[in-house]
């Protein structure tokens, strides 16, 4: 049986930039002053009734809005499956519930924050609103949560289990978790501005949050942004293995370095792990346009979904905004884009898309 192809036919993104009601990143701002970036909220009431929204934390609301934008963009009303990736799930409500337990000495517990605190709340609420009774799955695999969802979605389409899949990555900041990340050094310390990502000499990352959703279908349409050629995940990889692994990934797809029109790298400002990206950017791909995005989106487990949103936009608009350029190399046309991401030296992913 011939495997079906997977096309991105609609996208929606709620992020720490204004990525809704915009063409691309024309309103993007590089914030050098904050080590934790906050969401630019859409008008939730335009998408969710106040009665339904009152129990939802921002991650759930952002997921619902991003998915609604993606569905509208793809010009479809129903999908066969909903697949979500999230690193920390609905951490805001998890924190609220746990705090209630402690504050009230395990008494007076109410169900609201508990029922909203599970990792699959976002996928479930999207399905409820869309009345989608099909396959619904949430992947919680650290920094490859989104890629896990993407691989599943691609397989569902390839095997003809689904003709259309809504797939996305969503994470939200929680105050207590953010404080713990600062203590552990995962987030850069306070008061060390300016927070630059490309020439950082400190540990830790600038953090963020967001929700990016994609409508994947098995046929090319007028709305098509790109075809997803391949996605792969490696949980462990040494710095000196990245280049060989990348070339092997390209070879498996019958591609060479010269076929890649842009390389999207997940620089997050953490000096301890930036060689993973530098090794690629300064050697094999020195003559390839290189893009970065975590100065706009912040680092989080599913930030790579923002990267896919960005890469899809590049293929559609054939433009690379100055604000995301790592180098000054340009191409006449952008046809094939490779995305590479990792977090703290673990959970590596390669995603390949083509126009």
């Amino acid at each position, binding site marked *: 049986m011939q495997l079906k192809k997977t096309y991105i036919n609609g996208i929606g993104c709620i992020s720490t930039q204004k990525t809704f009601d915009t063409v691309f990143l024309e309103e993007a701002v590089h914030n050098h002053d904050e080590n934790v970036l906050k969401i630019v909220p859409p008008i939730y009431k335009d998408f969710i009734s106040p009665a339904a929204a*009152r129990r939802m934390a921002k991650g759930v609301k952002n997921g619902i809005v991003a998915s609604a934008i993606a569905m509208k963009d793809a010009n479809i009303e129903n999908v066969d499956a909903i697949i979500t990736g999230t690193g920390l799930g609905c951490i805001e409500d998890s924190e609220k519930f746990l705090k209630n337990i402690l504050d009230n000495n395990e008494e007076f517990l109410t169900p609201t924050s508990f029922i909203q605190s599970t990792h699959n709340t976002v996928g479930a609420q999207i399905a409820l609103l869309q009345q989608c009774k099909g396959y619904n799955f949430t992947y919680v695999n650290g920094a490859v949560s989104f890629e896990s969802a993407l691989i599943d979605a691609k397989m569902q389409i390839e095997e003809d289990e689904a003709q259309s899949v809504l797939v996305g990555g969503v994470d939200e900041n929680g105050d207590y978790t953010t404080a713990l990340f600062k203590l552990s050094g995962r987030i850069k310390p306070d008061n060390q501005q300016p927070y630059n990502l490309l020439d950082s000499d400190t540990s830790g990352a600038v953090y963020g949050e967001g929700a990016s959703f994609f409508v994947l279908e098995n046929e090319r349409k007028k709305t098509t942004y790109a075809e997803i050629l391949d996605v792969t995940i490696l949980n462990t990889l040494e710095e000196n293995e990245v280049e060989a692994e990348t070339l092997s990934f390209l070879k498996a797809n019958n591609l060479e370095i010269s076929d890649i029109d842009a390389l999207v790298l997940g620089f997050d400002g953490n000096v301890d792990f930036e060689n993973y990206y530098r090794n690629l950017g300064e050697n094999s791909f020195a003559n390839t346009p290189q893009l970065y995005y975590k100065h706009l989106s912040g680092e989080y487990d599913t930030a790579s979904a923002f990267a896919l949103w960005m890469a899809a936009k590049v293929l559609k608009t054939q433009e690379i905004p100055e604000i995301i350029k790592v180098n000054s190399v340009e191409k006449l046309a952008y046809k094939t884009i490779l995305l590479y991401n990792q977090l703290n030296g673990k959970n590596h992913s390669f995603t390949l898309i083509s126009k």
Partner: protein
Amino acid sequence: MEALKEELKNKIITTLNLEDIAIEDIADNDPLFGDGLGLDSIDALELIVILDKDYGIKLVDPKEGKTIFQSIESMAAYISANRTK
């Protein structure tokens, strides 16, 4: 009694996250469930916890809730008569 009613309205708006509703939008005799404020069974649990935590009233018979939580008026009356704190 008036102060208690206002306090209850405030608590309900805050606890149940009724973002679009102000104290003056809730009349003392408006039904809290169904056609009135439109609260549901999860909200009922939140109200039971408010009674217990803030006024020291433990509802032993869940059926009582239907009468007590009919409106702000009925809630305030029940609390005034039974509160232990």
